[in-house]
């Protein structure tokens, strides 16, 4: 029989994660991404130093789920708002949490210039190839041929263009210190995603410039799939279009790698 004194705590809710019940749909990977960020904030002892910037989109209520100071940006403007905060409070840890419509469509100018300036902020970028909150419209990352409510015949690249690979785009900028793409479709990839999130916060701590982790994520509701099928769909359909990998790693960071 195991007594209370023998019990060893091996798993608990991170302190940086609030007690709120999230509004996310069953099977959505936002919850996983939130938890990874919260675990990293705890492990690095950053909760009381951190200021998060929530986007407009499904994660608009992110500020309810993190147990740290937060602000809520206008659609796409999180990197600009984070710039304003970081420039006047350079000793604090500032991070944005943005979806693909927010970051890669309406906020394209803000994210590109934040990276180009080498703003010392951390960006968590959720790429699920669709607009979730408004009910499943075509995103800048929607795959060719993919059906959404605003591309009901499938994304026609002749008229609606091609998906944008943000990690590759931002990695070309000299201000970027750490830009990688990971996926949340299985435990192995989730563990890799967590390591990347940690490095993205370390990039900021060491003052190595702009850091972004792009996370391939599922949207079972708007993809009209079961949670299980949605995760498999990431592996089968998204990963080939958005290859996982390290697109920019500042040399000083490479030495920190586990």
């Amino acid at each position, binding site marked *: 029989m195991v007594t209370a004194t023998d019990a060893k705590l091996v798993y608990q809710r991170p302190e940086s994660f609030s007690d709120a019940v999230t509004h996310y749909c069953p099977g959505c990977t936002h919850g996983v991404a939130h938890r990874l960020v919260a675990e990293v904030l705890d492990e690095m002892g950053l*909760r*009381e*130093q*951190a*200021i998060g*910037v*929530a986007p407009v989109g499904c994660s*608009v209520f992110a*500020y309810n789920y*993190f*147990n*740290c*100071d*937060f*602000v*809520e*940006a*206008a659609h796409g*403007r999180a990197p*600009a*708002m*984070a*710039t*304003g*905060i970081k*420039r*006047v*409070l350079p000793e*604090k*840890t500032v991070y944005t949490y943005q979806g693909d419509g927010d970051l890669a469509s309406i906020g394209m*100018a*803000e994210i*590109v*210039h934040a990276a180009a*300036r080498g703003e010392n902020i951390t960006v968590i970028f959720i790429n699920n190839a669709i607009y979730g909150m408004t009910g499943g419209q075509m995103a800048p990352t929607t795959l060719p041929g993919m059906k959404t409510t605003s591309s009901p015949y499938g994304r026609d690249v002749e008229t609606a263009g091609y998906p944008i690979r943000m990690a590759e785009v931002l990695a070309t900028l000299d201000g970027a210190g750490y830009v990688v793409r990971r996926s949340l479709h299985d435990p192995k990839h989730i563990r890799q995603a967590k390591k990347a999130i940690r490095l993205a916060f370390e990039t900021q701590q060491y003052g190595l410039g702009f850091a972004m982790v792009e996370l391939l994520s599922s949207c079972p509701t708007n993809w009209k799939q079961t949670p299980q099928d949605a995760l498999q769909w990431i592996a089968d359909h998204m990963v080939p279009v958005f290859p996982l990998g390290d697109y920019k790693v500042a040399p000083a960071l490479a030495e920190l790698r586990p």
Partner: protein
Amino acid sequence: MAKQLLKGNEAFAEAAIRAGLEGFFGYPITPSTEFLEHMAKRMPELGRAFVQAESEVAAINMVYGAACTGKRAMTASSSPGISLMMEGLSYIAGTEVPVVIVNVMRGGPGLGNIAPSQGDYNQMVKGGGHGDYSPIVLAPASVQEAIDYITLAFDLAEKYRTIVAVVVDGNVGQMMEPAELPPMRELPKEAPDWAVTGAQGREPRFLSSIYIDPKDEEVTNVRLLKRWLEIEANEVRYKEYDLEDAEIIVIGFGTAGRVASSAVRLARQEGIPVGLFRPITLAPFPYQRIEKLTKQAKTFLVVEMNTGMMYDDVRLAVKGKVPVEFYGRLGGVVPLPDEILEEIRRVAASPAKDQNGHVRQSWLKRLEKVMRGEQ
């Protein structure tokens, strides 16, 4: 500190720094660019934040972020740039953080031109961004006033956690005048109790303009309105010249008001009982004071560098008790003292009777004669 010869934009910028500005975020646009250039030079010297943003959209959102930390933050721009900032200003209003903006107004609509104009009156005074809010709007008419009111702007913004817009035109922004700068203020050591600074040893805070439950938004709208009513009760400012025995009262703000003051002096020399009322706060607008002046005034003459935007507010104040005449120049054309003197003489000779919406039509006829060089 002694008077120096100072250029408008640079003087405002330096006054903002001395008022405790800790973050400036802007984008170049004529005729406000010297503001940005002065900040680019001075803010790094003082170890304070300066960013030339990728757009006015980004600039105002940087201001928004910096303001959420409780530090004094601002931007300066000109009409088309201010239009781009309206989204961010609405969010700032909804989040109730203090922000100061300067609009060096130019001719419009559209790209317009870079000449002095007052065509942004409605945009600035009535809010401009979406949703239900009212910013404080200050209208200096000289370099010294611009210096004084930018300091006031920061104090009011903080006191009421609101947006304060300082509106000038290219004349005030570009002209050089003797003026005196205030001493450098010390920066506050503590952040205000609402600011987002990292939740060290306290409960987390969050700042947002989102109130997803309409009942909560209504509570917010009521709070904003009550604050505005307090501002209306306490912060109305104006200047009066030669009003003691004035039967004709000219009303103009900013550059138009300043040009009108020359015309009023000339008219006085001709024995016309005329005075000048110059609103300093365009919002809150001095409705009550103007209504009180209807007891002595036989006619008001509103002079603006737009099609009569403040004129409508003056009519609201006057409530039809006496006639309100109008004279405006448009598109970046500044009225000359002689033009306004001519208007004062005309009003003195034959006071207006017609107040049924034909005031603009009769003004247009006179304006078109002036434009053709016939008057």
